């Protein structure tokens, strides 16, 4: 049995330890928002957060995630169903086309903004170039990240103001 936390919930899985995290999540947990694209960490469609950092779950054995905390696209928004700022920006900028890569793109973008709340173009390029969008929506992804980064800054300022007050 392998125990780990997925989207805030402690789960134990009876599973072969070399099974990639992606397939454990998709097939055992029935969380299908994270996608299979390449199986070799080349496309980013399977991106999840492991203790807050983005990882390619198609090449991470489930055993390596034991005792750690995983967030998938299903767990990115608030508990009340509210969308994450990145998801809101994705709708506002009308980013997805086929949509298949977008869970991974959003998870990479959310991790970037967590680490770097106001990223430069170069920082966005660096953080996002592991995620392929075959529909080619890179321009919109970049715009959405910038728009969410403004929103994040506002949130941060608001939080600070509240704490200060």
């Amino acid at each position: 049995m392998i125990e780990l936390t997925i989207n805030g919930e402690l789960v134990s899985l009876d599973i072969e330890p070399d099974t990639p995290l992606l397939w454990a999540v998709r097939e055992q947990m029935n969380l299908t928002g994270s996608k299979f694209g390449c199986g070799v960490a080349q496309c980013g469609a399977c991106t999840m957060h492991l203790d807050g950092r983005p990882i390619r779950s198609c090449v991470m054995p489930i055993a390596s995630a034991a005792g750690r905390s995983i967030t998938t696209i299903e767990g990115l928004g608030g508990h009340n169903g509210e969308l994450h700022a990145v998801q809101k920006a994705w709708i506002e900028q009308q980013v997805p086309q086929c949509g298949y890569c977008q869970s991974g793109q959003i998870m990479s973008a959310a991790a970037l903004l967590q680490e770097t709340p106001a990223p430069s173009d170069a920082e966005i390029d660096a953080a996002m170039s592991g995620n392929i969008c075959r529909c080619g929506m890179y321009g919109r992804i970049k715009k959405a990240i910038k728009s969410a980064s403004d929103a994040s800054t506002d949130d941060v300022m608001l939080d600070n103001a509240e704490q200060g007050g």
Partner: protein
Amino acid sequence: MGKWTRRAFLLGGALSGGGLVLAVAVRPGHRTPRLAKLVQGENEVLVNAWVKLLPNNEIKVIVPHVEMGQGAHTAMAMMLAEELDADWSKVSVEEAPAHEEYATYDIARDFVYPAQVPGFVDDTIKGAFLEISQIMDLQITGGSYSVRATGVRSMRVAGAAVRELLINAAADVWGVAASEVRTEDSFLFHDGSGKKAAYIEFAQQAAKEKGSNTPTLKSESEFKIMGRRDIQRLDIPAKVTGEAQFGIDVALPGMKVATVRAAPVFGATVESVDSQAVQKLDAVHRVLNLGDAVAVVAEGYWQAKKALAQLEIVFSKTDNDSLSSVEITQGFKQDLDKAVEDGQEIEDFSEGDVSLAFGASTKIIEAEYSVPFLAHATMEPMNCTALFRDGLLEVWTGTQNPLGVRNSLAKEFSIDANNVIVNNQYLGGGFGRRADIDYSLQAAKIAIELPDTPIKLIWSREEDTQHDHYRQAMVSRFKGGFDSNGAVVAWDNQFHEKHEPVEAPYIPYDIPNQSIHYTNSATHVPFGPWRSVDHSVHAFFTESFIDELAHAAGEDGYHFRRGLLGREKRMISVLDTAAKMANWNEALPAGWGRGIAIHRSFNTIVAQVVEVNMTGSSLRVEKVFCAADAGYAVSPDGFKAQMESGIVFGLTAALFGEITIKSGAVVQSNFHDYPMIRMKDSPLIEVEIINSGEALGGGGEPGTPPIAPAVTNAIFAASGTRVRALPIKI
């Protein structure tokens, strides 16, 4: 595209062409009661084939096209809702079932018989094309046809017809003249008496009538929904939360997962498979020899994939086992030479007299171009879930041709089509790949071997890359002649392999003597339609060679083209717009270059100006300015997104795309050796839409063809190097 070939269309057209259409066609009659059995849910009222009204006055638009990111679901709904005067906030979409009643007959009609017909024969023509489409299993999303065919001929007409029926029903009950009843936001009003009713109140009454085939449509100035930039795609919210269901996400109780390894060389078969090593594994359910592939069925994908890797499979030998890309290309060139020698060519287009014109030319320019095979590389690898139980075959997949899948499965496995159910899902990319049905057949074959167990077949990325249906590799040869005044007087183009659309190699330029001719040069590599099909190759060829002629004439690419577009006012306007967007006459920094290309495809004209930067260690495509005239952009932001997408798709091919053959098999296997454009390589793209008011063109494909020549023309401008083979290797 399966059976959707030009030949099939022409055959369909020939069989029913001219007066015969009227003679054999059955008028479709009032189809709604029949259709209601297929699509009308509890409490829903199907008013006509494409519209359902719900008790809370919500509207469901039935769309016979699939959603693969091109935005067809939303654009179709906008067109219908516009004419229906619907409250857009209460409109949703339901995809039509894979059933012959929902065959996409407007596409067949637009293809064979694009003209408008008098109203009184419209119904008969519709009936004829419904029949033809059913015979051809045509329920296709492709050819950039959804908006311009189904949208124009079915969605708008249906919306307007239902609105008329609702008005008539209300007028009848209210005892007022229909002309006094007005509609707004899904409500009916009679201002004189102050009466007001929701559409749903008169839905039952309206559904009894067939409605007009030629209702009055709105003019552009009356549009409230079509053409609005702020309307958001209906499928996007589910695509940011992970809730959108793609084929690969289907889950059924007791489901097992299969994966396959097909014979690496196309045409080879499985001679033997040694599965001893895996048969004893708990997680492995079955190993199946499918003839041309071996499948492992297991508890999950990972177990199936691991077991597959342990199998010892021997594939049969074929005549192509030693074939490589170099030999295939040599074969093309030999066939081109031989066709000329033997006089075995097919004339594609001819005007004037090229031999005479070349004889009198004072300057002749010749060039040979080539492009490689390309895979589609949809982000979602091919997959299909199938269940065979009690003689009923049910599949869940993402396909561009649901009816084609249903009827092909019925035929292949000798099952009555009524016992085959296709549940289409969102497509994680299509680009033509999902118009083929190979993966559905494979999944069904496995499911029939293992009845009562749902089987989800998932191809690995490697399998997906190496068993695609590929954009053809091609060689194209050109000769251009100038007269003593420096005018281009002759254009000769020879190529091999012609698919569709027929006009792909034709040029818009005023060159008085033209000869376009081709031969066939078969390979064992399976062909499939790839975003814009023949346009993706010919636009690179013709728009590069015209640039060579411009250089030979001592003119820049923009002004040279402009001078040759005398008869094409629309194209001039698109070309001018792109040039203006790019500030064509302004100098660029040293080491930068600007290139232009224009191409008409799927009835949409697109011009692109590209700026490249060659000052660094590698080529950078910095900016793309794109002007596009599709007549009218129904969903402007969606259309813009399609241009952006088409550009990146074509740029990926121009910069990286190359499938090579070695020992008869595809060499590339995954994104490490079949790379895609990523964020860091992605240019800035600006799109300007021109609403010329001409007949509508498509959106999904026309953005792709001009980008490769615009880039290579820019490289020439920057460096003097003419790129004649893709991908660009600089």
